[in-house]
């Protein structure tokens, strides 16, 4: 309890609260603009936060991360265009409600569900923290290596129908992480005798290229679009109150969000899918799903907003990011010499509680902001897409150039921007590259000490957590292959029957 109060005390400083306010409101605005998204915003702001104290910088980025999905629901419901990728499922039921003249009700339900699940997920994590504090120290080099490997396997498997592409991109990410001066023997790897390659590829430069510059290139070279939406009239508070009629769906969505968020590489999409399927299967009116179902909308929004808090768990407890946004936050930790991992839960639990308290506060700030500003945000949605591209390109410069004032970094970012654009046009995910880059580095660093006392293969899995993780990886791979085989057989039977 003392630590919790100490954590809250850390928040009660003007600079921290101001950063939280800027991050939360900024995140909503960024989330509401289709084509920007939290990854672009965090990538651009990341170098700017390096000059700030650790909690201030992290709280600002957390604000963006946690609030962008609130904002993303607005265009998803009103103009059938998700503000962020994870709001895609919201369009299924949100937009049909708008077409029926129930836009206010849909927005109220989305905000209410997001708020409810956001708060519930953080409370669940606060209760889980003592357990994590006990479990995290049991993770040595072998366990962290296996957890990182599990993250990579999951990120490949989670991309259903694209597992081969996700695997090759994850491999590419791991390769990028090996370029430069090798950390143990100090030999050069794939530097081609170029001094600018000796320090390797900086994560932030790659992230800015793959997320921000690629999005700018896509918008600049695409057709012009200036979406329009009608203003909202009525009481938002009353509309949000309707969420209480769907308490069970909110609780289930939160549960799925927390569980899926904690597993590296899985994230919002699986949580939403499970939550939506559960809501549909237990609904009295399953046919309404996809045609403006209140339950469907609540299931989607509650699951996705429970993930950010849970996604911080593998990052804080093990130092393993589960997705691109937490991978970016990892670099903020490192810059400030705050090393996430077992020691953080043992030595700086008040810092962890401060982050949780910040997440609760950001949900309150955002919901209050959304109650009064939805019509104001509609004006921001109307920015023409190509002009938005100019804005992202200009802001990307700050992110890349302010790192080291290096023109090489800008060239590398531009190259990755182009790679990201090709991936987007090919409908392939850039996230495996980022996770490969981060997790590959962790795996290489941890594999060497992990192998120090290993004489036979089985020695690696002697400790219970290592054995559990090893079995989990094996089960996942076998399960995935079996599921592919089953699908193939089912399709073959369908084809034969047709």
């Amino acid at each position, binding site marked *: 309890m003392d630590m919790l109060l100490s954590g809250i005390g850390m928040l009660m400083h003007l600079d921290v609260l101001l950063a939280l306010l800027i991050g939360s409101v900024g995140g909503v605005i960024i989330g509401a603009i289709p084509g920007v998204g939290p990854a672009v915003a965090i990538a651009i702001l990341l*170098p*700017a936060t390096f*000059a700030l104290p650790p909690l201030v910088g992290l709280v600002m980025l957390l604000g963006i991360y946690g609030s962008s999905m609130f904002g993303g629901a607005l265009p998803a419901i009103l103009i059938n265009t998700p503000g962020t990728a994870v709001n895609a499922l919201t369009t299924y039921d949100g937009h049909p409600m708008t077409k029926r003249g129930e836009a206010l009700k849909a927005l109220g339900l989305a905000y209410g569900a997001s708020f409810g699940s956001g708060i519930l997920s953080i409370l669940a994590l606060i209760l889980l923290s003592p357990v994590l504090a006990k479990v995290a120290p049991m993770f040595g080099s072998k366990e962290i290596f296996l957890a990182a490997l599990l993250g990579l396997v999951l990120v490949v498997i989670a991309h259903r129908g694209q597992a*081969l*592409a996700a*695997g*090759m991109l*994850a*491999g*590419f990410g*791991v*390769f990028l992480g*090996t370029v430069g001066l090798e950390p*143990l*023997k100090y*030999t*050069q790897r*794939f530097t*081609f005798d170029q001094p600018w390659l000796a320090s390797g590829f900086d994560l932030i430069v790659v992230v800015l290229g793959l997320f921000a*510059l690629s999005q*700018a*290139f*896509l918008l*600049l*070279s695409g057709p012009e679009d200036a979406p329009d939406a009608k203003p909202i009239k009525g009481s938002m508070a009353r509309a949000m109150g309707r969420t209480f009629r769907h308490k069970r769906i909110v609780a289930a969505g939160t549960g799925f969000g927390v569980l899926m968020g904690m597993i590296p590489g899985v994230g919002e999409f699986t949580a939403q899918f499970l939550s939506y399927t559960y809501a549909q299967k237990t609904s009295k009116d399953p046919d309404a799903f996809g045609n403006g179902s209140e339950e469907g909308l609540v299931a989607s929004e509650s699951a996705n907003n429970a993930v950010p808090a849970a996604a911080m768990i593998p990052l804080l407890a093990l130092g393993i990011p589960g997705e691109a946004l937490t991978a970016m936050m990892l670099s903020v930790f490192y810059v400030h010499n705050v090393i996430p991992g077992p020691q953080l839960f043992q030595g700086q639990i008040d810092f962890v509680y401060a982050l949780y308290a910040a997440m609760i506060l950001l949900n309150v700030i955002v919901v209050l902001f959304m109650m009064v500003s939805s019509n104001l945000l509609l004006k921001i949605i109307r920015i023409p897409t*190509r*002009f938005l*591209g*100019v*804005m992202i*390109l*200009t*802001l*990307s*410069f*700050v992110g890349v*150039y*302010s790192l080291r*004032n290096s*023109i090489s970094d*800008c*060239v590398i970012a*531009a190259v990755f*921007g*182009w790679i990201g*654009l090709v991936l987007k*046009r*090919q*409908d392939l995910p850039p996230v495996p590259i980022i996770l*490969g880059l981060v997790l*590959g580095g962790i*795996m*290489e660093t941890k594999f060497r000490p992990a*192998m120090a006392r290993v004489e036979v293969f089985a020695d690696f899995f002697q400790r219970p957590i290592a054995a559990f993780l090893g079995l989990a990886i094996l089960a996942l791979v076998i399960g995935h292959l079996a599921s592919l085989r089953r699908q*193939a*057989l089912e*399709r*073959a039977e*369908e*084809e034969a029957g047709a």
Partner: protein
Amino acid sequence: MSDPIAKPVPGVDIPPRPGQRTGTRFQRVLRTISPRIVTGVPRRAAGPGEVVFAAGFFCLSLILLLLLPFQTDWLPRTKIFVQPRFWPAIAILTMLVFSGGHLLRALAAHPSGGAWEEIKGWLRPLEFALWFLGYVQLVPQAGYLLATILFTCAISWRLGYRSLRWMGLATLFALGTVLVFRSLLGVNIPSGAIYELLPPGGFRSFLMTRF
């Protein structure tokens, strides 16, 4: 042909007319050994440029594998997992295996056409990459404020936002960006050489540190 997206493939589903070309022999063999034959999975339609991308990535993996002995070291009397070559080799082999699978999958899918249009779509944004790099070169010379105003106005003009309103908005956006990042947050961007032309004094220092 029960799969709704599956189109008949000349040379596989449709017997070729006399003298009709149905791709190279290699392509015909690959279509014949598609996963559909092995597993019963219906053939899907390839996206435009999918084969080009997959082939490009596979070639990159292959080139990296060939370069591996020349770009990494192998140290004597050192365990394999401590070798500097170990992790790049793991990464490149992963790339090679998965990109090989991705390429085979793309080749086995129905060719949908439009590859050249897609490649043009990949090349078109290179113009904006050059704009970006031009902006990067301009900042150390003209200073952050002036370079940003010039860049946003020029690129907006290029994109067709030529009215006074849009030029004003572009300028305001540039000014706002500089004020937030340089003046307020103090991000690390060097002052422009242009400020050296001003007489020494407080005003020059102010411009150099804030704009």
